[in-house]
């Protein structure tokens, strides 16, 4: 390869990463579902004709990483290259050939240049409703979870399949929104396609063969160099979490070979009766994400940089659920996979990875309606409100865990002012939860308190999707566990961590989301940080004394300084 083409290949690789970013931004701006536009639950990428992913947008969430990378291969196999034409748009929400549940719609568009098929664009978005029982864990099989769209053409040579659109419209609760989102997905692929063709014209390319080789070869080499530098060992990790009715054991054996890393989930619990099972694509996505963060964080995602991370799991274990297992809330289990992998990896690469954190997002959906126990005011309405929230992240080997910040998920929370404008819900409290971060040399991130009620005249169903009620995050090297999730009603009525529960008029749900665990012994914590935490109220005076050994006189000095407005 000549000197000069090295430079143009470098420029083109840069360009492709920018192209998929434009593609993702277009989706964020045109999507209707809150999960996409506010929370960023999406992904976008460009592929060669063989279905190998060349670049993936940075905007998006890790849950789609590997899943979407593999998905285009399924489209090629199902539709057949000979049946692909300019103007085509393909679609699916197959949990096993897409990204893990019916609520993720994947749209793939072939790119043609000068009459020749040169590649694909694909994107995925989490939509709020797909019919069935609604978003929750209550289904007994995937058939109850909503409409299933097998891999098929949404548009054939520019002609949208009107029958399919009618079927979609007839099966979901918010048809305008969903069809709007499908169009948004198609539009964003189109944006990517236009930019790709601009680039091909500029660099006088007729296909992507050479640039694909350049990207994949450099990525493969860089990733394998990183892996080769690791000790060739294997280690096991495990974690127990709440599950739906019975606790679930996640087990993994991580083995580092010369040129690949294998995660084997043998020993993990079997399928659950409820919809918290995980298709293997989603397990792969999060296992791979965890390894990439620890080993090769700056290498962009593509087919070659992902390939050396291999994931195996016994069929019909909870992390390799096959059809027709219910999978709607696969994220509740899936979000714990990185911490499980890290439990093993820490034994091979000590002082590299974080300790356990809150894990899954602390999401809930509120279904509001006019009160039924007494006459409701005329202004009372029905409304569905979904919110995304985070507990604390685990401490790192050289820094505290992040307070109320999602890990491993990449989604954002919504402003409560926006949530309260979306429906008659009132968020009475949303703030950090002191003393919830596990004590340690480095403290776990704090969880948060929330209090949720309804506008006067309404009652509601509360769909809980929480874990870590009975299994708080565990510390490492002497670090203490994070605080557990708690949930109850304002009248002290008990509530469960998962499932739909009724909340009568005038009552609120009182939530405390879990904290991350600590790293190292709390006795080794820098006293300056202990005093800072006390001044800020991250820890109470009692914890400062009990866990960190601060003397009462020191506590008094800190609290006085705070009162007097002195800087600490």
């Amino acid at each position, binding site marked *: 390869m000549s*000197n*000069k083409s*090295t*430079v*143009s290949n*470098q*420029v083109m*690789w*840069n360009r492709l990463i*920018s192209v998929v970013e434009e593609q993702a931004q277009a989706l*964020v*701006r*045109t999507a*209707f*579902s*809150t999960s996409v*536009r506010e929370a960023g639950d999406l992904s976008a990428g460009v592929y060669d004709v063989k279905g190998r992913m060349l670049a993936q947008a*940075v905007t998006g969430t890790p849950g789609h990483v590997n899943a979407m990378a593999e998905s285009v291969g399924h489209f090629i196999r199902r539709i057949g290259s000979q049946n692909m034409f300019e103007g085509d748009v393909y679609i699916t929400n197959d949990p096993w050939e897409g990204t893990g549940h019916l609520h993720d719609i994947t749209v793939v568009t072939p790119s043609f240049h000068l009459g020749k098929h040169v590649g694909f664009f694909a994107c995925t978005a989490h939509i709020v409703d797909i019919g069935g029982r609604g978003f929750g864990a209550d289904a007994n099989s995937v058939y109850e979870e909503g409409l299933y769209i097998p891999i098929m053409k949404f548009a054939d040579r520019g002609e949208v399949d009107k029958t399919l659109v009618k079927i979609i419209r007839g099966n979901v609760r918010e048809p305008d*929104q969903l069809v*709007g989102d499908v*169009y948004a997905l198609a539009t964003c692929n*189109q944006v990517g396609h236009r930019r790709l063709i601009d680039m091909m014209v500029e660099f006088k390319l007729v296909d992507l063969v050479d640039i694909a080789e350049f990207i994949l070869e*450099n990525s493969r080499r*860089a990733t394998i*160099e*990183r892996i080769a530098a690791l000790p060739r060992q294997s280690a096991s990790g495990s974690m127990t979490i709440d599950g739906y009715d019975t606790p679930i054991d996640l087990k993994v054996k991580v083995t580092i070979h010369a040129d690949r890393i294998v995660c084997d989930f043998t020993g993990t619990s079997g399928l659950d009766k409820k919809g918290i099972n995980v298709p293997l694509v989603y397990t792969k996505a999060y296992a791979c994400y965890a390894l*990439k*963060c620890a080993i090769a*964080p*700056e290498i962009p995602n593509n087919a070659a940089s992902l390939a050396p991370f291999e994931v195996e799991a016994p069929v019909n274990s909870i992390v390799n659920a096959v059809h027709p297992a219910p999978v709607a809330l696969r994220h509740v289990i899936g979000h714990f996979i990185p911490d499980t992998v890290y439990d093993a990896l820490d034994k091979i690469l000590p002082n590299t*990875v974080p300790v356990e954190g809150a894990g899954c997002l602390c999401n809930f959906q509120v279904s509001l309606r006019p009160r039924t126990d007494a006459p409701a005011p005329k202004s009372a309405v029905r409304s569905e409100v979904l919110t*995304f929230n*985070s507990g604390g992240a685990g401490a790192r080997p050289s820094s505290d865990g*992040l307070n*109320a*910040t*999602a*890990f491993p998920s*990449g*989604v*954002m*929370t919504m*402003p409560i*002012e*926006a949530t*309260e*404008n979306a429906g008659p819900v*009132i968020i009475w*409290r*949303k*703030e*950090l939860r002191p003393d919830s971060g596990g004590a340690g040399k480095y403290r776990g991130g704090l969880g*948060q308190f929330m*209090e949720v009620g309804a*506008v006067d005249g309404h009652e509601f169903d509360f769909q809980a999707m929480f874990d870590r009620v009975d299994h708080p995050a565990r510390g490492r090297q002497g670090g203490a566990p994070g605080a557990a999730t708690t949930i109850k009603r304002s009248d002290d009525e008990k509530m469960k961590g998962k499932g739909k529960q009724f909340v009568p008029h005038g009552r609120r749900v009182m939530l405390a989301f879990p904290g991350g665990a600590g790293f190292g012994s709390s006795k080794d914590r820098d006293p300056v940080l202990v005093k800072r935490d006390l001044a*800020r*109220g991250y820890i109470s005076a009692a914890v400062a004394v009990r866990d960190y050994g601060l003397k009462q006189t020191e506590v008094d000095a800190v609290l006085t300084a*705070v*009162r007097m*407005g002195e800087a600490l």
Partner: protein
Amino acid sequence: MNLIAARLGVDIGGTFTDVVLELGDKQYSAKVLTTYAAPENAIIDGMHQVCAKAAIKTSAITQIIHGTTLATNALIERRGAKTALVTTQGFRDVIEMRTESRFEQYDLNLALPEPLLPRQCRYVLNERIGAKGDVLIALQRADIEALAEELRVAGYQSIAVGLIHSYANDAHEKLVREVLEKKLPGVMISLSSEVSPQMREYERFNTVVANAFIKPLMKSYLGRLAGQLKVEGADCPIFLMHSGGGIISIENAADFPVRLVESGPAGGAVFAANIAARYGLDKVLSFDMGGTTAKICLIKNQTPKTSRVFEVARTYRFKKGSGMPISIPVIDMVEIGAGGGSLASVDAMRQIRVGPHSAGSEPGPACYGRGGTKPAVTDADLVLGRLDADNFAGGSIKLDAAASRGALATHIGTTLQLDDQTAAFGVAEVVDENMANAARVHAVENGEDLSGYTMIAFGGAAPLHAGRLCEKLGVARCLVPPGAGVGSAIGFLRAPFSFEANRSVYMRLSDFDAKKITTLLSELESEAVRFVRSCDATAAILPEFKVYMRYSGQGWEIPVALTAEQAMKPEVQVFQSLFEADYEKLFGRVVSGMDVEITVWAVNATTPPQKVTRIAERQLESKMAMEARRQIFDPALAQQVDAGVVERSLLKTGQGLVGPAVITEDETTIIVPSSRQIVRQDDGCIDMTLKA
């Protein structure tokens, strides 16, 4: 009595303070090192320099327009007053919890930026306003009085008040101020419902906190400045450039200093907009490239694009989400870490990376010979023949080409097995590609296609890279104005008096309430006009009406401009069709059957733009004889070419030349690629177009 207006534009930047005096149609400029401890000193120094050049007394100055990075820097460096936040019980940590997400997903050791105020400086009151502005929990005066005592003991100088849903009902915030003013005389108070009356508590609270944090500092600075200028004889009105591209009175600036953030770059955009007007250009991309960053802004119909929120003080490679959001009317630009001093390296994928780390002025690029060993963009430019080693910055710094080659070889060439020149080519291509990508994404976000655009390039490094950037973006024309080195300060002198008032109020088109709209927009109009009137007692003031609309259920609003008549006699069909037209333009199609809602209402009051004389555009009439020739590297051809070299000051109007060529001047160098030609226009602009 001096009848000619003598106006002084002053821009305090990170390194230099630029002063421009405009006397009739003549301009005199000075660049003085910024004096951080007392920024007014550099202004005084620069003012005396330009007055001496123009041979006028300081007392002859009739008006001073000032813009500054001091507010931005105070936020970046966290140098502010002892400040407290008073907020709603249950929401003490809004500015700390941010969006609860990580802006960089693959960094396990990610550090989030600390909030401006630590938790112990955030106090709560038991009160609550609902989403519709209804009072859910009434605020008790006694609670505020008790809190005032706590705040007094702790000795705060400045207090921010941010209560939930205060944009919908500001009564509680006002009550807090009333009581605190009484109990804590001398303490400055900022209300979120005044500083930024917009929905989304994180942005609003952060904005009011930022305002309170820098208020004492800015108030004292502005007071000192006014006093000093008076002492030095310049007893004239002083106005401040704001981030939205207009000017406000020094009193308003002292009350809302957060509106001064990014006023320097805003001046640059106004500068470019003024040139756009001179040439009658409706689609302009301004490109400002300095030592550390490049800024790109879209200017349509001679008006810079504005936005309602932006991020300041990004802490992580200029990454979105790593700074703090400020929601104020602002000129919308992208800023990336790409400047002459940006450093290049090779990463694990053997890809060349440039920036965002910069060599700054110390040690500077390797070629400065001040101890820098890493290759910067300037080193690549030197090796590619774009800079003259003996004649850089008017000959004040002698560049060391061997040092550039050495740095490029060590950090790029050896690893990638590239010769020095190809390594330099790679670095230049990557930085140009980075800027082109930023411009493309920005255009897409605004539904624009850059191919019909004209670039206006200014800032020290821009003319070196503008030609290549045009090639990459498919932009056919580029103007390089004179005075490019002090563009922002000149821009201040072109800015109108303006103030934007806005408010979040939800309204669905299915609940369209014409009377409510008229009332709301009239209120906003009189508020905005009041601010402008305080600057100019007689000028005509034009209101510009804008609403932010979206389909119900979407999260992104798009701005929709209304005429005065559409605003004062609102009709639902008109709103609907204006929205659909804009939406289709942005995203390619409308979505039928969805309800549309309005979220934010805005009125910008502005004095009319300065009269601009359209210049008669010249074609290339005569070709300039080349004084010298040198080899430069043309990236589009990927080879060395033999280029003519001329001095800019020798080019006469209507004269020009055909690329490849190099045009030199003290402040910068203009590179004309092989694909372009240039002509000097009447106003001194170098007009670069595709070769005939």
